[in-house]
């Protein structure tokens, strides 16, 4: 079962917590604090799912740019965007760019797990296809 998840967020607390929750649920997680390390992680081994913060502070690329890069290199890789606060425009932009879904902070653990399960299932489908 594909369960390799890459979490990209500039905020360490969020990064570690998301990873911890998903670890608790039995997923394999990796983390990256900026766009460069995220690209490196993806390049080293393609994950099954990426959580990507829209606003990557102090990074070369922001979330949306990184999303485009990922979609360009790995069209089938599901990406779930994490946004700081309700911003329909950003969400729409993300979905248009090929994001699987987006989660607005603060989100609940249930939603995180639910989105993860659905995204992985979808990724498997597309991979199988």
């Amino acid at each position, binding site marked *: 079962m594909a369960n390799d998840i890459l979490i990209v967020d500039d*905020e360490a*607390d*969020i990064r570690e*917590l*998301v990873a*911890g*929750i998903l670890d*608790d649920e039995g997923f394999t997680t990796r983390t990256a604090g900026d766009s460069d390390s995220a690209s490196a992680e993806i390049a080293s081994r393609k994950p099954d799912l990426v959580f990507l913060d829209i606003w990557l502070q102090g990074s070369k690329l922001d979330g949306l740019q990184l999303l485009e890069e990922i979609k360009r290199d790995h069209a089938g890789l599901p990406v779930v965007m994490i946004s*700081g*606060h*309700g911003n329909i425009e950003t969400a729409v932009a993300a979905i248009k760019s090929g994001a699987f879904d987006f989660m607005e*902070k*603060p*989100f*609940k*653990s249930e939603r*995180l797990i639910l989105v993860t399960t659905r995204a992985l299932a979808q990724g498997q489908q597309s991979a199988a296809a």
Partner: protein
Amino acid sequence: MTTADTSATAPFDPSLPESKGWPLGRWLAPFAVAIALLSAILTFVVLTGLTRIEPTAQVVNSFYLIDAATILLLLGFILREVWKVVQARRRGRAAARLHVQVVGLFSVIAAVPAVVVAVVANVMIDRGLDQLFTGPTRELVQNAVSIAKAYTFEHAAAIRGDILAVADDIQQTPAPLFDQDRGTFQQLFLRSASARNLPFAMLIDKNGNKLVETEFQQRFATPPPDILNNPDLVNDTEPYLVVLPDENYVAAVIRLRAFSDTFLYVARPLDPFVVGQLKQTELKAQGYAEMEAQRYGIQIAFALMFAVIALTILMASVLIGLNFADRLVAPIRRLMNAASTVSTGDLHVQVPVHRSEGDLAQLGETFNKMTQELRTQRDELVNASELIDSRRRFIEAVLSSASAGIIGVDGSGSVGILNRSAEKLIGHAESETLDHPLSDVLPELDELMKNAREGKQRLVQGQVTIQRDGQERNLSVRVTAEQNNPSRDSYIITLDDITELVSAQRTSAWGDVARRIAHEIKNPLTPIQLSAERIRRKFGRVITDDKAVFEQCTDTIIRQVDDIRRMVDEFSRFARMPKPVMEGEDVADTVRQAVFLMKVAHSEIDIEAELKQDPLRAQFDRRLISQALTNIIKNATEAIEAVPAEELGRGRIDVIAARENNDIIIDVIDNGIGLPKVARARLLEPYVTTREKGTGLGLAIVGRVLEDHGGRIELKDASDFRPGQRGAWMRLRFAVSGHADKVEAGAEPAGDKPPASEKMQPAAETGKVAEATHSETNIEAAGN
């Protein structure tokens, strides 16, 4: 132009009709003058004997009578003219004085020479007659007569001597000789006569019969017997002499003493030339004497003639003078009348110009040109002033319609002009600010005006805040110096009310801040929440001791985080309220749905929708109105929940939707705890709440939504709706068209009576924190 004007100006020239009226009168005077002159000349001619008419006393007298009549006629005319002039002068008619002067001058000029000549002529005649009837002339005449008489007497004396000598001769002859020898006697008689150089001699008897006579060619009449027989005339001593100048001879007769009744009669012819001269001399002398007798009569006649002629000329000249004065004065009078008309401001005056009037015609022409020029210039001035006036009106219209306040300040700092917008901004009418110093009217501008006065630049800008009627206004002020007149600078002050702009800027800046804060608050909320959830998930199964406490703690963390998130959301939503999207929707349906949702959520309260019209179409943003209505109903439910259970009975909320004129009205009436009696208006302001945990944004958001729809929220008491009922009555009002077409500030009407039950206000009073919080969550769900 001139002709037209002449006809047009005829009424302005009263002298015109007069000069044309009564032609008979005009011709009568010259006619009378002609008659008078003619009769005077005739009199003169007749009197001087130049005609065949004998200047007898009767003829002369009748001529004088005719002259007197014509003079009287002239005098009548003159009096009439003078009367007219006097009348005119009395009425103060133009140029009457000049008229009188001209006539007077004319009369004097005409009369003085006539009188002088008459006097001189009379004197001359007197002197001439004096010379004629005195001195040498008289002597000459008398001498001539004397000489003629002397000549005759001499002849008579000579013939006396002759007759005496002849008589002597005859008487010395013997008497018988006469009777006997008549032949000898006759010879003797003839010798004696011829010796005496008597060409004619005869003897006659007392009956005049010739006895003896000499022969002579000329016949001499024999003396009549009555003379011969008169012894007083004819005797024998002294001969009776007869001078017969007409017969050109002298004769003498004497009685002969020696003969009985026989008379000697001799005659001698005179020189015919001398006799002729003698006769003429006598005639002349006689005429001279007659003339002398008539001398004073002639003198008077001539004097009268002179007087008549002088008078006639005087009258004629006065009449001519009057006529001339009329002609001279008429154009002057026209000019004076026209000038006086002009002086009253009427420039449409033209005087008629008659070429025959010479210089005055030119003057009239110049006058016409002058008035024309004046009129043209005045018309131009009037036009220019009208143009200026219309521009001024235009500028005033522009000023009054300008949204910016405009104040004109003169050099002394007084207000010169103030448009309507400025009146509104500064809260004074123009009438009460004009000519007042600007520093009294708007002291806030002192600083800027000082800069404008002292500074060199033409434009000074700045912002001031003024307080008027308790309201604070932000004004952007521009002061422009008008430097047309360097000594008296004036300023144009432009006031732009930027209160709204400032407020919008503030709101916008505040929105940014709110968003930023929201972001910053929400960020740490995520890890807090995730941490709490992870703790619960991971360790919830493990913990057995006091598991309830563990659950409560984690739940509290999670719930409080959720509250914070919700409050931040609401906060930022208010800060950047979306613009309503107006669409044609059904108010009734919107109300129905909102009421249905709330009914489901609060089954313990009777929530009834009453739709006066169904459907009820209007332009509005369904989402926002729905949210606002939901908010209000939710507030009502909370107000009801705040009532202690024992007092409450059954909770009830009435929602009534209706159309009132151009407004949609949704009334929400509850029987809850009601609105506070004081400071209701403040409930509409953001962050004002009576509830401990309320954000104070709910009613503010509702108010703002309605404002955006051209409406407002009205806060009343339920007792106004249904007497005796506890609770609040909220009225939502917005325009059918979706925007305000009348000026209705949303906040103002809300201030009337105490406002509204904000969502949480009862909850705060009762301190039911948890319930309130909970219901807020529900509201948000419904709103979304």
